[in-house]
């Protein structure tokens, strides 16, 4: 797969093909173009990593919530209103001083949509999928994380029906911050495991 989201071949060809497909399926009554608009709108404006960041911030500030999140992530995430497609069965894994987690899908592009939105191109790319499981420390180095030898790596190859989100470590010096300000610190890569927070 191309590392770029941009098609290498002429845009026109695939554009025409997709338009024709939509027209045929619409004429046959199999899709409603307004439903397509509504789907796109959800994933461009509603469903994205801000959802996951809110989950992380809540877990950092509410130990009872964190306990629920670690034991039944799907239900705990649904408490905040995030649920559904590609997040029906969630697992949250926690980074600690001695454990760093990294999520990948080697076979395709499995990713927890309700909390992180649609995956970035690099997550779906051959370089990431091929190397994350055999050289996670090398991959992390490319993302700027130089793990010490005393930290163990756990790689989660999420090919089955479970979807994984990393709970990053709460940064030092954030004791005074509330959940909203904490959420602003959380990055999407932090919840994949390719950033510290």
């Amino acid at each position, binding site marked *: *797969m*191309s*590392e*770029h*989201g*941009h098609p*290498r071949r002429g*845009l026109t060809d*695939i*554009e025409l*093909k*997709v338009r*024709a497909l*939509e027209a*045929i399926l619409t*004429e*046959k*009554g*199999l*899709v*409603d173009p307004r*439903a*397509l*608009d509504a*789907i796109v709108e*959800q*994933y*461009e404006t509603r469903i*994205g990593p801000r959802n996951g960041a809110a989950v992380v911030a809540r877990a950092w500030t509410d130990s009872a919530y964190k306990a629920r999140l670690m034991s039944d992530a799907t239900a705990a995430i649904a408490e905040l209103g995030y649920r*559904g*497609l590609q997040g*029906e*069965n969630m697992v949250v894994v926690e980074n600690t001083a001695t454990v760093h987690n990294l999520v*990948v899908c*080697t*076979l*395709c592009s499995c990713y927890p949509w309700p909390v992180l939105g*649609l995956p*970035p191109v*690099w997550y779906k*790319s*051959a*370089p*990431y*999928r*091929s*190397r*994350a*499981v*055999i050289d*996670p420390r090398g991959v992390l180095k*490319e*993302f700027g994380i130089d793990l010490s030898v005393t930290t163990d*790596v*756990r790689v989660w*190859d999420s*090919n*089955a*029906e*479970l979807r994984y989100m990393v709970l990053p470590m709460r940064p030092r010096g954030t004791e005074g911050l509330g959940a909203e300000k904490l959420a602003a610190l959380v990055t999407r890569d932090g919840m994949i495991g390719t950033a510290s927070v």
Partner: protein
Amino acid sequence: MNGLHDMGGMMGFGPIEREAHEPVFHADWERRMFALVSAVGYAVPFNDDHLRREIERTPPAEYLTSTYYELWYRALVSVLEERRAVSREELAGARPRPLPPSVQIGPALAAGKVVAAIAAGASARRDARVPPRFTVGDRVRARDLNPAGHTRLPRYVRGRPGVITRDHGVFSFNDSNARGDGEQPQHVHAVCFAMRDLWGPAASAGDHLYLDLWDDHLEPA
């Protein structure tokens, strides 16, 4: 299928390239393609197992040179043709013909139901009462299976020893469902593999790989 998509452990694909702005979609056709795949499954019965099977059938050179949503286009058309919901002639410009009566069709997903449909999801978890073949702590081995069809058992763990760390419950089995052999619901377990058991002594001693596998992927170690 031991296809190119099963790339865990391969080398030589170059550095991980990150985009500057990472838009959700890069062009309008990507938006439509994503939405078409999301929506049409409500009217024509198919699921991710079928879509993945078709993506994996992409000829390797095409797989490597296509963008993500180009692969989706290819796979969706294959699935819809298989179900006789569209034909190559129609895609090539012929007037759409009525659907043959053999195709079971529900109504198209309505715009007003999109939010609820996304929130409802499409869980592969099943209520079937199936006893688990393994329990947490069991030492297991990923089986040496090399099916010609779709499988969620990656090559890099086959024959390797691991330990069950969690029983996720009962799920539809992707492998059987993708090949048309039904859902065969069974337990899915998190299996922990020492990196050294996968890649040899050069791997870090404390590093581990976790992978969720179905009962049928496993045997006692």
